[in-house]
């Protein structure tokens, strides 16, 4: 129960040649096809959008400090929550883990030199930038007040804000997701190293495979949906326009057909990160590997048939509502399979509370709260009370911030030594993780109560009796902001001054930990041959754990 055995032995040196110093100059970065460099380009860009989205969130929370809304006008308030949602969802949460960590790690984890289509990978980053530029243009020229959901006919006919460039930007950005998903799927199918069978794939790769399925099947639907809304706005065609007999509810169906699975785009990769962190810091093979892998696919598949639970109050037929309510409950099963397997992995493990593990444990708790409150909302009767209240806001922030961002930060800390070759200051990082956890709960837990009491979401004003809880939430948000700034500072600092990490500082079992930190441009000196099972701490002597957990004798092939 102590972290002492995991401290890195000193005296390690950075490898002489690695992907960061292989070539120099701005051109070598902007025209790179190295998946690791593209991951870093994505890291910078998604962080930029995270701070834009965070800025809007801060303004929202400051505005809600007092009832009556003195900081901004109601119209500006509408724009703030819309732009917060658009920046965070489309330009931070969706690309964050897949395009940064997935991009960096998937080829290394499966023993490949690069993704299947390196140029397509670079293209996807440029597509993201072009989409992002359109959206920033929309923010800068009048903003956007439709809500991130772009419901018609507000978005297609009535809104006076800069909807058109935003819709174009998100449409373009969709192709970035599609290309990333396509690349991952093909890579996992065709680029695995000898011996890397499907059931030896790290769960991080399984999670990204499931995410990629959603990328390629869901994203084209949001693309066409927003395109139709855009054509309606620009050229007065009518697909959802009631004046022509079109049905705005059809827009909602098509929108949520993507945007519900998009929630799983955000959470599945985070689950993949947690599935790597938990066995590493419990120093045990993960419990129920097959089930966790299958549950990722299960979540991706079932996630496609629950969308209308966002629309219980649109007057859809009771029968369809009952069916969607039931299907929504069904998603809880694969999600719970994961949570139970993670906790079973912890059971009798030698748990070390290093920073990634703090994020991992935080994730399990917060995701469980977020998931269970999702079941409240899936109940048809209860949803009538809770629909469009702060309860919903709190629920999905527990999944997206408490889940996805905790997973993202946990993953960034976990693989930071691999990405940069250096360790971050452990003590400071633990403090930051705890500050984040406290700040997060203080921000969003009061919102469950506010929602239950009846405070509607997306209103710029509220009755005075809700003030205490709103003040708590705003206070939490400022702590949360500090929690985000700290890693920004010390991670940047550690890139130059951090202790050299060595190949495998934790130690962990993945293939990525057998190569240099930071890795070569080609990832490995020679193509690895995998002849061990996944997460096998017991039978690999380099971890020094032989016989400490299991009494089974080591198999003949295990000593690599």
């Amino acid at each position, binding site marked *: 129960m102590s972290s002492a055995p995991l401290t890195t032995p000193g005296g390690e040196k950075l490898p002489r040649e690695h992907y960061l110093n292989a070539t120099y100059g701005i051109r070598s970065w902007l025209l790179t096809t190295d998946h690791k460099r593209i991951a870093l380009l994505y890291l910078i860009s998604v962080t930029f959008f995270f701070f834009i989205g965070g800025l809007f969130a801060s303004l929202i929370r400051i505005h809600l400090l007092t009832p009556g809304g003195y900081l901004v006008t109601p119209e500006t308030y509408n724009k703030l929550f819309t732009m917060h949602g658009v920046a965070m969802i489309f330009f931070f949460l969706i690309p964050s883990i897949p395009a940064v960590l997935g991009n960096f790690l998937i*080829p290394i984890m499966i023993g490949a030199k690069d993704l299947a289509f390196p140029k397509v990978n670079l293209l996807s980053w440029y597509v993201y930038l072009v989409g992002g530029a359109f959206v920033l243009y929309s923010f800068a020229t009048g903003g956007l007040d439709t809500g991130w959901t772009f419901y018609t006919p507000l978005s297609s006919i009535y809104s006076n804000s800069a909807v058109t460039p935003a819709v174009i930007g998100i449409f373009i950005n969709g192709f970035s997701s599609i290309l990333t998903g396509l690349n991952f799927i093909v890579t996992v199918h065709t680029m695995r190293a000898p011996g890397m069978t499907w059931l030896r794939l790290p769960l991080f790769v399984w999670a990204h495979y499931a995410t990629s399925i959603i990328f390629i099947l869901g994203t084209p639907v949001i693309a066409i949906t927003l395109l139709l809304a855009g054509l309606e706005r620009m050229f007065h065609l009518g697909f959802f326009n009631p*004046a022509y007999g079109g049905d705005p509810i059809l827009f909602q169906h098509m929108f949520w057909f993507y945007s519900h699975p998009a929630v799983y785009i955000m959470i599945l990769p985070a689950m993949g990160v947690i599935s790597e962190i938990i066995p590493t810091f419990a120093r045990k093979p993960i419990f129920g590997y097959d089930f966790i892998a299958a549950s990722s696919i299960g979540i991706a598949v079932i996630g496609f048939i629950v969308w209308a639970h966002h629309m219980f109050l649109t007057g859809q037929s009771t029968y369809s509502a009952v069916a969607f309510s039931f299907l929504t409950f069904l998603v809880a099963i694969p999600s719970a399979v994961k949570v139970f397997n993670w906790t079973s992995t912890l059971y009798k493990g030698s748990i070390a509370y290093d920073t990634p593990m703090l994020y991992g444990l935080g994730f399990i708790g917060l995701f469980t709260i977020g998931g269970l409150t999702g079941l409240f909302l899936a109940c048809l009767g209860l949803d009538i009370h809770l629909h469009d209240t702060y309860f919903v806001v709190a629920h999905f922030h527990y999944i997206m911030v408490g889940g996805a961002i905790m997973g993202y930060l946990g993953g960034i800390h976990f693989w930071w030594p691999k990405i940069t070759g250096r360790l971050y200051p452990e003590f400071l990082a633990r403090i930051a993780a705890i500050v984040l956890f406290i700040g997060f709960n203080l921000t969003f837990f009061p919102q469950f109560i506010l929602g239950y009491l009846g405070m509607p979401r997306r209103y710029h004003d509220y009755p005075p009796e809700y003030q205490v809880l709103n003040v708590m939430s705003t206070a939490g948000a400022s702590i949360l902001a500090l929690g985000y700034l700290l890693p920004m500072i010390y991670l940047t600092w550690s890139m130059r001054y951090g202790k050299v990490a060595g190949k495998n500082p934790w130690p962990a079992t993945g293939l990525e930990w057998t190569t240099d930190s930071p890795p070569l441009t080609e990832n490995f000196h020679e193509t690895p041959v995998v002849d061990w099972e996944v997460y096998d701490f017991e039978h690999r002597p380099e971890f020094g754990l032989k016989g400490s957990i299991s009494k089974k004798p080591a198999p003949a092939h295990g000593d690599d």
Partner: protein
Amino acid sequence: MHRTGELYGQFQTLDQQKETATLGMWVFLVTEILFFGGLFLAYTINRHAFPTAFGIGGNMLDLTLGAANTVVLILSSLTMAMAVWSATTGKKSLVTIFLILTLALGGVFLGVKVVEYKQKFDHHLIPGHNFDISYCVKNPSPVCGTPAELATEEKEIEEGLKVDPDLNAHAQLYFSLYFGMTGLHALHMVIGAGLLLWLIVQSAKGRFDANYNTPVENIGLYWHFVDIVWIYLFPLLYLINRHLG
């Protein structure tokens, strides 16, 4: 630049490289199906809701041009398949010829589409302020068709209005979908034409032979996909309400 059939750095063997490229194209086509799927869904729901308006709208399209275009597109798929066949059997000069034929047929299709769009413009069938489903009936002229055709149209609209008083509004929905679906299809044709042009240049340089023909095959897959989309669009938009005789 990479020469013919060179092994890219991330792969171990040429077979792996080819398998990867082909799988990539198939996965891309899956996303394309979902992309068009949204439009087909919108069409199906609205056709179910407004059968009269959609029927009359469909009858106002030019069946001859639509049918001719279908034949042209199927022929272009044939020539594309022949190009792939020539490439895999190593007939280098035939590849170029068949690719040029495919591009030409694609060009004919797009040309006919322009004529059809112009017709709809003249008939005031572009959704918006000037849309009027009975414009031709009210302002008969040679541009609108023969008097016999216009008489049938007038009768149809009259009877339609009895069933669906909002016929003009709902017909706009039909024509929005017509332009949305055929427009998106045409955009895919234009992209396909660009890809063909690149293929023709490469093929003229003798880049494709029995050992290396992945680009021909994969762009062929794309071209066939775009063709299949039209095979669905034609009956849905043009044929579904026609009656023989």
